[in-house]
């Protein structure tokens, strides 16, 4: 019962000392705010990101690059043989070249840009591309047929059935500007001075630009709901591998591919630049990765990348957490200071309370409740702050994800119990900070305190 009375008295006092209360709880607010942001980020990464990466097959996907040339052996190219050898490995569900280029696609009277993906016809046997919405997959690697994605049709506002049997004309879009920009930067990153790098890139542009580009006329045989991968995506238009050999095109939409090409010192002639391997199960990941490397290819593992990312997240997380803890520590000092001041100012009041029969325990409790109340106010505000900040960052990140056409992932997650835990923690820290001042209050000598001024 007396606890309720003390709560009332504490909040009365805090209301009376508005500015002081606000400033003291602001410290707690910053500390708890940072901790809440840290926790929700930590939980977001742990829960959502893993789950969603799993969903999009990140943990079942390996990128294979051509092997590096070593002293005694030449580079192992990503050719038909590579497809067969990797496809034969235990645990591999699917392997296909990451062969995309930006194409100008003409259908009926209009021409649009689209990402064109070359795939072996066997692709569909190994694994469905997603869902065939209409029609079928192309019949062979050299069929003059194409499958278009549902998404691309949606942009055109066309029903899947109505495009079947139509003819598409595909031309490679020149990627000159892009190669110049990207190529220059890659060379520069590798230690070449900027002028030389630019020169080389221009040369590349000229060479590629000069090689010309043919046009393909293909019949649309199917419409598919194309699935997502991580770090790559199946193109909007799927075409058979052999069919596109006639068209000189390279995609520079993927820096990884470009780097692979530069490493090889050549273009598509030595094989594809990247193969995508999909596994039957995540459990096979390390084993298959090792086997592929034994075959002489390089791998680029999303899992490694993800682990690195996760480490980065963790470091970031600890950093925010450390800021939160430091802020809380400073806030605790602020509370000690405020409470000591308040007790000095209220020495006479403490004497009066003692003369009215307050026990030392009562006075200790009274001031602990008061510092705890500062903690409660600060923690509630901190919860709002942390939540607001994480919502804000999340919105910005999601905006970019959407703009990049990536699946939208919420990086933050704040389970209800952590919200309560954060408030509890804020109150706990504040109560601990109140221990010294409140024991000082309890020890006030009433005779001295009540002496006439």
């Amino acid at each position, binding site marked *: 019962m007396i606890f309720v009375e003390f709560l009332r008295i504490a909040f009365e006092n805090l209301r009376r000392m508005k500015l002081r209360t606000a400033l003291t709880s602001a410290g707690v607010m910053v500390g708890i705010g940072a901790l809440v942001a840290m926790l929700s980020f930590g939980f977001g990464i742990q829960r959502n990101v893993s789950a969603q990466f799993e969903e999009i097959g990140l943990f079942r996907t390996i990128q294979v690059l051509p092997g590096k040339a070593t002293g005694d052996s030449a580079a192992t190219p990503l050719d038909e043989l590579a497809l067969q050898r990797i496809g034969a490995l235990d645990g591999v569900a699917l392997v296909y070249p990451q062969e995309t280029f930006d194409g100008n696609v003409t259908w009926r009277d209009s021409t649009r840009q689209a990402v064109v993906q070359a795939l072996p016809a066997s692709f569909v046997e190994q694994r469905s591309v997603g869902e065939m919405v209409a029609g079928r997959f192309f019949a062979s690697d050299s069929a003059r047929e194409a499958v278009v994605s549902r998404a691309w049709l949606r942009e055109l506002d066309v029903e899947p059935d109505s495009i079947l049997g139509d003819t598409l004309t595909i031309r490679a879009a020149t990627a000159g500007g892009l190669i110049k920009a990207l190529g220059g930067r890659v060379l520069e990153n590798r230690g070449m001075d900027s002028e030389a790098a630019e020169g080389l890139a221009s040369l590349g542009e000229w060479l590629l630009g000069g090689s010309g580009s043919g046009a393909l006329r293909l019949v649309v045989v199917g419409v598919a709901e194309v699935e997502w991968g991580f770090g790559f995506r199946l193109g909007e238009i799927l075409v058979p591998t052999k069919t596109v050999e006639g068209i000189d095109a390279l995609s520079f939409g993927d820096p990884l591919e470009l780097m692979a090409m530069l490493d090889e010192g050549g273009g598509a002639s030595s094989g594809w630049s990247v193969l995508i391997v999909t596994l039957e199960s995540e459990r096979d990941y390390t084993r298959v990765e090792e086997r592929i490397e034994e075959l002489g290819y390089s791998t680029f593992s999303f899992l490694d990348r993800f682990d690195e990312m996760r480490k980065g997240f963790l470091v970031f997380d600890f950093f925010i957490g450390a800021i939160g803890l430091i802020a809380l520590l400073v806030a605790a000092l602020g509370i000690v200071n405020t409470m000591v001041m308040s007790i000095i100012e209220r020495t006479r009041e403490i004497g009066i309370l003692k003369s009215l*029969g307050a026990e030392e325990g009562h006075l200790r409790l009274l001031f602990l409740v008061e510092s705890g109340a500062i903690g409660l106010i600060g923690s509630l505000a901190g919860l709002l702050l942390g939540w607001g900040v994480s919502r804000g960052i999340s919105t910005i990140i999601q905006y970019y994800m959407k703009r990049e056409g990536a699946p939208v992932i919420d990086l933050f997650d704040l389970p209800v119990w952590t919200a309560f835990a954060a408030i509890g923690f804020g109150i706990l820290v504040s109560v601990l900070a109140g221990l010294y001042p409140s024991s000082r209050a309890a020890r006030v000598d009433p005779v001295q305190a009540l002496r006439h001024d």
Partner: protein
Amino acid sequence: MLRTHQLRRVYRLGGAEIRALDGVDLEIRDGEYLRVIGSSGSGKSTLLNLLAGLDRPTEGRIETPAGDLGRLSRKELAAWRSRQIGMVFQTFNLIPHRTALQNVELGMLFAGLERRERIRRATEMLEQLGLAGRLNHRPADLSGGEQQRVALARAMAKGPRLLLADEPTGNLDRENAEATAGFLREMSGRGVTIVLVTHDAGLATDDVHRTVRMDYGRIVDEEERA
């Protein structure tokens, strides 16, 4: 109801010893109205604080219904104050940021009364003291006389058996001093034991049962009145 035996309270300041109380034997009967006079520094306040259990004797005993105050635990002393004793002071000692009603109500908190009961009694007591219109005033908005009446209400609202008053009229004008004396007389009439410390020779205190004079920490004179 109270009996002190060879009560001593010695303050040590540096090397010096100050004998604020130097062997006080005093018996206070149940229902007695006792006046304590004496020059400044004679130990009157020290005696009162010891009777209230706010201070502890250096030597001697204070026998009360609750036991020898010198031997009670701090918790037991707090209980003695909260239930058995009302105190008033020269400087009123009201809590400045609480209203008259809140001050009086707080006086009953540690006696364990329920909030509604505390408010009921506080209101009643303040009305009795002519402060019906001042319930929600803070001390700063009250005159000295009104403040002392709030303090008297706070002391008496819990119905203590013993009222300890240390120069309650010291800061009051004649009229308010007489009113305070009147209130004490009324309380005495209701059977409350009162110890009144006062300098005020002119105060109408014909109604006190006994007067003791203190000097240098001893009782030097005693005058009984029938």
